[in-house]
C-alpha cells in the first residue's frame, strides 16, 4: 500500500498581517510558520493507517513551498511518515488552488498511491479546493470533511461532517482521497527518539517547474484588513482598571448585573 499526505505550512495566525509589496498577499517578514492545523489531522490519520498496515505500507509526505517548508516535512517525518517530497517553489503563495493541485497530481500520477490524505482547508488561504481537485485530476474517489476513518481490504469507510452535528457515512474503493477535519483524531507530538530517527529519512527535492505547466485560473486583486464595522469599544491597560470598566459597562448596558 502506498500512502501520500499533503501538507502546507502556514503562518502563526495570532500574528499581525501586513500586505506584501504587490499588495496581494501577506508580507512574510517576522512571521513564524508551522504546519496547517487541518493537515496535522491528515498526517496523524495517515500514520495511524500506516501503523495498522505494518511493513507492507509506505507513507510519503509532500509539501509545495519555499525552503522553510522543510521544517514541516521534518516534523511529519518525526511523527512517523517514511519519506518526504519537497516541491520547491519560492513563489508558491502566488499560485492558485488549481496550480497547486495540478503540481501535486503531476507528482502523484505515476506513483501508484492507494490513499491520499489532505486537510479540508488551509488556514491562510482557506479555499478548501486543493484536495478535491487533486482527486478529480487523478480520477480518485473522494470524500471531504471527514471526522471518522476506517480502512479494510481496498475499501475506505469515512464519516463526513454535515451541518448541525449530523454525519454522513460513505464507502469508497481505493484509490481514494480524503480531506480531514478537526476532531478526526488528536495529533501526536514527535518524541525525541523519533526526531533523531527522522534525521535519517530521505527528503527528495523537485523544482516546481518540473511538474507544473498550468497557468492560474484566478487572480488576486488585493489583500487587506476587513472594513471596520463595529461600534464596539476596545479596552486596554491595567487588569484592575479593565475589570472596573467592564463591570461599569455591564451595569450600564445590560440587565445582568445590578
Amino acid at each position, binding site marked *: 500500500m502506498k500512502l501520500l499526505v499533503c501538507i502546507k505550512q502556514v503562518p502563526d495566525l495570532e500574528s499581525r498581517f501586513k500586505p506584501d509589496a504587490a499588495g496581494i498577499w501577506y508580507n512574510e517578514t517576522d512571521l513564524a510558520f508551522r504546519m496547517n492545523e487541518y493537515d496535522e489531522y491528515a498526517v496523524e490519520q495517515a500514520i495511524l493507517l500506516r501503523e495498522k498496515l505494518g511493513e507492507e505500507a509506505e507513507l510519503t509526505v509532500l509539501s509545495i513551498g519555499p525552503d522553510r517548508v522543510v521544517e514541516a516535512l521534518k516534523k511529519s517525518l518525526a511523527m512517523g511518515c517514511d519519506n518526504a517530497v519537497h516541491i520547491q517553489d519560492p513563489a508558491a503563495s502566488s499560485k492558485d488552488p488549481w496550480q497547486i493541485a495540478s503540481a501535486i497530481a503531476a507528482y502523484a500520477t505515476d506513483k501508484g498511491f492507494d490513499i491520499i490524505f489532505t486537510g479540508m482547508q488551509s488556514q491562510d488561504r482557506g479555499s478548501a479546493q486543493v484536495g478535491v481537485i487533486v482527486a*478529480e485530476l487523478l480520477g480518485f*474517489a473522494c470524500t471531504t470533511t471527514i471526522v471518522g476513518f476506517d480502512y479494510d481490504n481496498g475499501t475506505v469507510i469515512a464519516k463526513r461532517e454535515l451541518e448541525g452535528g449530523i454525519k454522513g457515512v460513505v464507502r469508497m474503493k481505493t484509490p481514494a482521497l480524503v480531506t480531514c477535519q478537526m476532531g478526526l483524531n488528536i495529533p501526536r507530538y514527535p518524541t525525541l527518539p523519533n526526531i533523531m530517527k527522522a534525521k535519517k529519512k530521505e527528503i527528495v527535492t523537485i523544482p516546481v517547474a518540473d511538474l507544473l505547466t498550468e497557468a492560474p485560473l484566478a487572480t488576486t486583486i488585493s489583500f487587506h*484588513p476587513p472594513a471596520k464595522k463595529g461600534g464596539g469599544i476596545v*479596552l*486596554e491597560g491595567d487588569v484592575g482598571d479593565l475589570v472596573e470598566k467592564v463591570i461599569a459597562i455591564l451595569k450600564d*448596558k445590560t440587565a445582568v448585573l445590578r
Partner: protein
Amino acid sequence: MKTLLVGEYREGKLLDSTYELFGFAGQMGAETALLLVGSDAHLPAYGGTLYLADAAACGEYRPDLHKKLVLEAVQKENPDYIVFVHSSYGWDLAPRVAAALKVAQISEVMALADGGFEVGCCNAKMRRSVKPATNRAVVTIQAGAFPALQPGGSPTIQRLAADGGSTVEFVGYEAAEKKDVDLGKAEIIVSAGRGIGKKDNVSVIAALAAAFGGELGASRPVVDAGWVEHSHQVGTTGQTVSPKLYIACGISGAIQHLAGMKKSDFIVAINKDKDAPIGEIADVLVVADVMQFVPALTAKVAK
C-alpha cells in the same frame, strides 16, 4: 450575465440556505436558473427555469452523479457563474465542477468587491479580493453573507435523468449527539476558547460562568481536545445561542463560531490579540491575557 444556482436538498427537504443564492444573484444583477436534486413535492418559490433531478431516484448526495447533473445544466444554460452555498454540499461539489470545466473557483465569497469578489483569509483576520481569469467561474458563497430572497412564483421544470454511478457510496446518516445542556435557553454564557491554554484552566472560565449564574460554552478546538463536553460547543457544528450576555474568553472569532453566537444581545471578548476577528462583532473587546483578567473579573462579580 447569467448564473446557474445549485440549491440543496437533504432527506426530501429543500434547505433554506438555497434562497441565499438568489440574494447573491440579486446583488450581481444576474439572470438565474436553478438546479436541484429534489422532488416535485417540495418545489421552491421561484418562477424561473428549474433543472430538476429526482432525489428519490438519486438517493442522498452522490458526488459523481451530482457533478454530472450540474455539467448537463451548464451545457444547456451556458451560465457565466455556477453558484453554490459554501456548505458541506457546496465545498464538496463545487471543486469537482470547476475542475471538470477547468474554470476558476472562488471559495466562500462574503461580498462583491470592485471588479471581483471579497473572500476571507488568515482565519478571517484579513480579506482578499479575487477575480476569475476564466470566462466562466464557480463561486461558493459564505453561509449567511447574502440575504435569503424568495423570488416567488412556480418554476418551469426541465427534467434531468438521475442515472449514473458514483465512486462514493452513501451508507447512511448518523444523528447529532443528544444534548444534556440546552445553551439555547441560557441568559448568560461564558465560553472558553483555545486561548485558555490548557484543560486545567477550564475551571477558571467555569468559575466566571458560575459567578454570573450562567452556563459554560466552548469553541470547537476546546471540545475536540476533550477539555469540555461537546454539548457545550457553540457554532455551526454545535449549538446556536442568543443569551443576554456572551463572554468569549480566548476565542478568535472564526465564522463557524460567530454563526452560533452573533445574535447574543451583548458580547464581551477577552483576547490578547487586538486584531482578532471577534472584535468585529464584540460590543467590548478587552485586550488582555484571559488567565489574568478572568479571575479578577470573577472575584468582583462574585462579591
